[in-house]
């Protein structure tokens, strides 16, 4: 694909992610941190995010399956997920976490289950989209181009 095309495509894709709220300004911060000394920074952070999130989601699933639900623990986990998702700019995941925390506070089991599902869903979506975006950008970089940034 031609460089120009690749860049436009990547740009537009990224823009759509921002528009729909999947990503927020924090993601731009991450991208701005990337530089020559650390060309894979965003990719590294994002994969770290994925790893960590999956672990948390598994913990959450297990926690909700317990007979005796430990809301505190669940809340702590959700809190962490909220922190990491907000740090990478995964806005929808973060919002889902906020809702989840509210359910925890209310000790609403049903609500927690629902929230967990929601969080998982949002997570999978953002994972998918980020992987796509990063792949596109990697291709650009590999081809010698510069990744288009959204201001």
């Amino acid at each position: 694909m031609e460089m120009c095309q690749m860049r436009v495509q990547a740009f537009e894709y990224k823009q759509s992610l921002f528009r729909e709220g999947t990503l927020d300004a924090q993601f731009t911060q991450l991208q701005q941190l990337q530089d020559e000394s650390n060309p894979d920074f965003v990719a590294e952070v994002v994969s770290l995010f994925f790893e960590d999130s999956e672990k948390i989601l598994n913990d959450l699933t297990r926690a909700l399956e317990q007979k005796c639900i430990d809301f505190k623990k669940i809340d702590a986990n959700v809190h962490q997920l909220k922190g990491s998702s907000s740090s990478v700019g995964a806005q929808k995941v973060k919002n889902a976490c906020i809702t989840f925390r509210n359910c925890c506070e209310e000790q609403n089991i049903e609500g927690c289950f629902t929230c967990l599902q929601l969080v998982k869903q949002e997570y999978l979506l953002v994972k998918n989209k980020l992987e796509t975006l990063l792949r596109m950008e990697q291709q650009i970089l590999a081809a010698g181009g510069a990744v288009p940034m959204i201001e």
Partner: protein
Amino acid sequence: MNLGGQGAKSMAGDGVSDLFPVGLRVLVVDDDPTCLMILEKMLQNCLYEVTKCNRAEIALSILRENKNGFDVVISDVHMPDMDGFKLLEHIGLEMDLPVIMMSADDSKDVVMKGVTHGACDYLIKPVRIEALRNIWQHVVRKRKNEWKDVEQSGSIEDGERQQKQLEDAEFSSSGNEGNWRSSKRRKDEDDQGEDRDDTSSLKKPRVVWSVELHQQFVAAVNQLGIDKAVPKKILELMNVPGLTRENVASHLQLFPNVPYRGTHNYSHFVQKYRLYLRRLSGVSQHQSGLNNSFMGPSDPTFGSISSLNGLDLQALAATGQLPAQSLAMLQAASLGRSPNKSGISMPFMDQRNLFSFENPKLRSREGQQPQMSNNSTSKQVNLLHGIPTNMNMQPNPHGSQSSSLMNMQMSQPQSRPVIFNDTGANQISRLPSSIAQPNLSNGMPSGVVLARDGSNSVSQASTMVDFSVHPNTDFQGNSFPLPTNNSRVSIITSKGLLQEDGINSDMKGSRGFPPSYDIFGDLQQHKTQDWELQNVGLTFDASSHSKTQGSINVPPSVLVNHGFSSSQNNVQNRSTSVGKVMFSVGEQSGHGNVQSMGQQLDSVLDCNSLRVKAENLPEASGQNMLFHGQFSQEDLMSALLKQQEGLGVASNDYFFDGFPLDNLPV
């Protein structure tokens, strides 16, 4: 990033390198790997030197191993192994580094908790790089405050040295003058063979005055009667192996016969005490021919203070109401503050003379006694008036205490009388026992006055003050609610001091932390003695403090703040006395800071290697001693002292006996 080019750095007026904040050494602690990585990158982009850590314990050990290796710490609030606030407290106590908290949680109470625990700042996640660019301001601010403290304390040191020499002479002559009142309140339950915390490991042979030991001491004094409570006899009565007359003598200095029932308003107490000391010094000088230090810089206030204060203190002490705590408090206060810039160099010893034993002298001097007695609540003992946080203590080997006390007196013209508890002490006729009282009524169980020697070494006083926590902790205003411990000393947190006029400025500056801290929360677990925890309690949040009976909110920063950064003490030694670590600070803090600033860049390499290792080590050093438990009194003392002085803390040097502060009048 490489800061090797630091050769270019030069020290600006505030000791900051020209390249500053480039190379700022940041330790970032967060259990979330994603955030950690992002923060690291952001900080690197700010040209800071970053060390990351995902466990609070590891962070602590890194910091302990490398006391001067970092300039600022950024920590997450929610961490699995240790609560971020606890870490904050530990750091504040041990190292006196600025700590920035961060969290995804932006609820007001969490932020408030950060503030109350002494965090310099609170960042909400997701953290933007812009927020990180400015963190250097916290470092500069803290340093500035410390330097200020150092300056103030500097002048005292010389005088203190002199004083020290005279100390022995003083004691012997003043021995008979001690006005120790037996205090019925204080029970003498200690066994004779009470072990002392490690003294041998201290640089100077110091006795750690544990609560038990102090009680033995008090009992001995009471038994002897004020007039006869000379160090030698006290020593005999106490019958503690290894204790020397000199130990007793220095400890005795702390209690100028002021019955102290626990003051809540530590700062007041400290101020009064200082004033008292000053007066005493004036008196004592006359009498004992001491020329030094206490009066040090020809502080005019001495003369005036001595008569009144001396009396008060003595009377109070005599009644036994003023336990070590008050003394300690006073000392701390005095240490903490440099009364006047002139620097009272009075070494601790002098103070002793001033206070306690000079009843006869004082009496003769002044007719103030009668006045004092009548006035129980009025400012009789302005001992702690204006306890300076920094004491301008000169490098007094003897102990900053004395000088601090002196300072206290000297510097503050404040008229707040320290009211020692004089409930019923008729001796108090001389001195209103008020000293101890009112101020602390708020619930400061006992204020430990940690006077911080300007020179930063509280260390000068080798005796530790035992802090026993009083049941009534409520401190007003500045007071920190301390867990009350029926036994003993409540430590007057520097907070009290802080609020004092004179002190506040110093202390605040240096501390930069709000008053309540949960300093020794962790200690509690280990404490072998009640007092340990109690003392520690100064900085605890009631809730968090397991032992706390009351809630003590002592800002950790208070305790430790100051000298840690430069202090070399180091946790390393401690197996028995945790305190040490904290306190070497006193000595170094002032100076250390400057040096450390300069060395920051130099230490880059060290940090780098440290960093590498640190990350690999699960628990890098065993130095968690402080927190895990053995907070010896020394530690506490030093912490307190540190706080007070706002300087580096000289931990080992200053030992406070805890004494209940609840009687100090506000």
